[in-house]
């Protein structure tokens, strides 16, 4: 199964979840997702998702000045984002449950 395809559907949820723990900037969010186990997640996909979620009004952003390098743009969940996260969590859980049932059942049959 191609994980890239799977990821496409749930990247919003992943990004929202990560940000709900702590605000993050682009590179940081990618790293946290990969550390969390999504090794295949693409930089462009995460970056694009951040922009889209921001434009949809689920995220707020602020710039943190830095002495060494360029200023970093941080993203944070706002109220709408938190609501969206809660909804997505529910949908996800229901989906996982159904899929698990179907998959487990088929495994049992074969055996």
């Amino acid at each position, binding site marked *: 199964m191609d994980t890239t395809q799977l990821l496409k559907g749930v990247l919003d949820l992943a990004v929202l979840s990560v940000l709900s723990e702590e605000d993050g900037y*682009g590179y940081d969010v990618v790293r946290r997702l990969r550390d969390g186990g999504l090794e295949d997640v693409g930089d462009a996909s995460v970056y694009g998702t951040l922009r889209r979620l921001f434009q949809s009004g689920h995220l707020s952003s602020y710039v943190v000045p830095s002495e060494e390098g360029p200023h970093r743009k941080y993203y944070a969940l706002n109220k709408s984002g938190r609501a969206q996260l809660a909804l997505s969590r529910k949908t996800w859980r229901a989906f996982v449950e159904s899929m698990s049932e179907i998959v487990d059942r088929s495994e049992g049959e074969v055996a």
Partner: protein
Amino acid sequence: MTLSTQWYLDSIERELADLPADERVELLEDLAAHFSEFESDDDLVATLGDPGVYARELRDAAGLSAVPSLDTHVALVDRARANIDAVRRSAWWRAVTAFTLELRPAWWVLRAWLIVAAISEGPPGSGGVDFPIPRVADNTLVGLAALMIVVPVSVVLGQQARGGQRKGLNVALTLFGALFFVVLPASANNDSAAPAWVNPATTRAGPSTVARPGQVTSNELWVADSAGNTYLVSRVIPTAPGQVVSRAIIELQALCPSDLMKGPARALRTEDGAPIVCVGERAPTPTLNAPTTTAAATTTGVATTSTAPSATITEPSR
């Protein structure tokens, strides 16, 4: 910013050239800052992959305008094609198509008729065409013969075209027939331009005349059309003494214009069926007090004239 980073950004910008300028600029500035995180890596391509691929992935994830405008045209064409296919596959369309194909033989006959009608003259003087058999050269039999030739030719051609042969000829014949489908109604409308005839009884010619056989009467029947043109309808040559020439209302089509006098004289029908021979010619100028009442078209009045006065009668009009 390293050279390779700038190159990477430029490559991405090319991919996103279709975006509105301010959106694109803002995005690239943001990306530049993002890429600065990778400055430790020498080669962005090794870390992030081909810039074109990166740009497309980014476009996809960010929900930007899906495809550049060129592809939009392709997408539109594809969608149009898909819609057409869907209609084609639908049951009602197939029913309509099947029915139309059943009608094809009828079209072969119709186009043959149209072609014969095109060369026919119709009832004398009219812009219309006789139905069901068009008159050719003023002869119904000739028209019938023409039909009996053209219709089988058309049908056979149609059948051959269905079998794949002579398709070009078949198309040409169809177009020919279709052309006259359009032309015929147009020519028929010329009837409205035909002048209405006034009742000759109200013209100068009086109702009665008495003449000797063989004598040309001085009582000529003049008719005037609604346009004010006058025509000599007949110079009656009675064969019997005391023959009365009463009113005659001329059938519309037989205008007896002067040019007809060059050919065979056209005979007109009167109400009692007796033909009037049109031997005169157009009056020079209206010296008549032609009344302006317009009669209805195609009514025939009462007249008695010699049925066979002279050799100037050719064929009856019906």
